[in-house]
């Protein structure tokens, strides 16, 4: 009997001492560990969104961050998830304002793919392929024609999972991109601007939307596949002003204009303000479209020329 009591006592003592020691060490180290983890995550974030002057704001714990530069919303960072060959693959993806990938990172620490094969998806040689791609290009070249990612030899499952994770994440969070916020703004402004006019005829062409300093430019398509350049400007008294430039479709130009399209053109002419043409060189663009600024100006000039010719005829 006393033998049994002794055994129980020893086991109890060993158990309780271990538990005490463990909880002591845990309490001592837990804050240091979580601080280190936070720093590592911050480092990863700035690695996928290279600009050093940005600020991150966590939207969803460990999965979604909005990126701000000088208080302007300039992009997203997300972490998506997909089952790989032998565990979850969780890439960290930096995306700019229009949905183009900046960088992708897959932290090695929580990856359990085959060493020497699937593990290679965490290496720069594979991840660099994602640079500057947009949604539909994020496919393996062997899976889809427009895909631009070459799979790692003998590690197709891991490569495909990583690629799918990035693409699905892009799709899932695309609604939150700054570009879509412009679109939302456009839609509401158009509604307030012309409640009863022909705005329902217009369709904003995807990827033809630019934001200038305090106005928006977008290209839209209207009936008879003619194009219209629009400038939406927010004036000082907070009212929105719209300026449009009409681009003739060369094919419809030759045809006899119907009553309906004539009316439409008259409406556009009314809206057109030639003041813009004089000041077109003053039009300021944000840094993100600085590269195509001259192209936009040129396009507006030629469109305007075409428009004048058509009117004089």
């Amino acid at each position, binding site marked *: 009997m006393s*033998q049994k009591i*002794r*055994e129980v006592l*020893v*086991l109890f003592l*060993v*158990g309780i001492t*271990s*538990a005490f*020691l*463990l909880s002591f*060490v*845990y309490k*001592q*180290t*837990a804050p*240091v*560990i979580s601080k*280190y983890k936070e720093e*590592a995550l911050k480092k990863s974030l700035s690695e996928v969104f290279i600009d050093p002057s940005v600020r991150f704001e966590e939207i969803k714990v460990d999965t979604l961050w909005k990126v701000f530069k000088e208080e302007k919303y300039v992009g997203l960072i997300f972490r998506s998830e997909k089952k790989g060959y032998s565990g979850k693959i969780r890439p960290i993806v930096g995306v700019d304002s229009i949905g183009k990938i900046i960088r992708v990172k897959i932290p*090695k*620490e929580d990856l359990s793919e*085959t*060493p*020497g*094969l699937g*593990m290679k998806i965490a290496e720069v040689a594979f991840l660099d392929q994602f640079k500057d791609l947009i949604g539909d290009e994020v496919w393996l070249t062997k899976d889809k024609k427009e895909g631009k990612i070459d799979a790692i*030899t*003998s590690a197709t499952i891991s490569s495909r999972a990583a690629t799918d994770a990035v693409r699905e994440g892009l799709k899932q969070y695309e609604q939150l991109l700054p570009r879509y916020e412009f679109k939302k703004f456009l839609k509401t402004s158009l509604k307030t601007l012309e409640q009863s006019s022909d705005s329902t005829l217009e369709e904003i062409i995807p990827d033809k939307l630019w934001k200038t300093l305090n106005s928006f430019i977008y290209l839209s398509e209207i009936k008879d596949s003619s194009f219209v350049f629009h400038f939406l400007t927010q004036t000082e008294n907070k009212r929105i002003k719209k300026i449009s430039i009409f681009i003739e479709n060369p094919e419809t130009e030759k045809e006899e204009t119907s009553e309906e399209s004539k009316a439409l053109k008259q409406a556009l002419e009314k809206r057109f303000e030639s003041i813009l043409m004089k000041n077109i060189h003053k039009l300021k663009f944000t840094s993100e479209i600085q590269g195509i600024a001259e192209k936009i100006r040129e396009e507006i000039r030629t469109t305007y020329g075409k428009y004048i010719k058509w009117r004089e005829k």
Partner: protein
Amino acid sequence: MEGEIKRTLIDGIIKNNIILVLAIGLCPTLAVTTSAYNGIGMGLAATFVFILSNLFISSLRKIIPGNLRIPIFIIIIASFVTMIDYSLKAYLPPLSTQLGVFVPLIVVNCGILGRAEGFAYKNPVHLSLMDGLGAGIGFTLVLFIMGTIREILGQGIWLNIPGIFPGIKVLGSSFAESSVILLILPPGGFLTIALLMGLFNYWRKK
């Protein structure tokens, strides 16, 4: 006395080799030995635990009741390995990320339990320390050899340390393109371990 210490050490490496003779602790062995560097990392981390675990068990051997020795071994080993894991994560994060995969594997390594039960529970502290060191060295050597074979044949390179050293090209780039991928995958681990065991026992019988 000195002869006894030396014999214990050498026995730990050869006669009681954890993997090739006792065939315990095989799961982490198969999982980890895809490269020589992984083999060394796991081996050294385990050696450290072998020594400490033998030290603990051997010095407590008189108060641990025979009926309950196995659960007590498990509690002691698992707790202090976990404590080491926490401390590494907090105070030596770079080392911890390098050893990241190995430490949890050590907690469940039956090789360590095997040495505690097979040697440390029955022998004095100084001999148990030597046995731990010997077992660790034997374990590390076998892991290193297995890692070397699997890495060279599976990838054509040797001693690649992820993020630090790209590895020595042993078999040329044309081989690396069409390497024996089977050897990196789990079946390759079984094949390598079986061949090594066979060779080792053939050599010992001679």
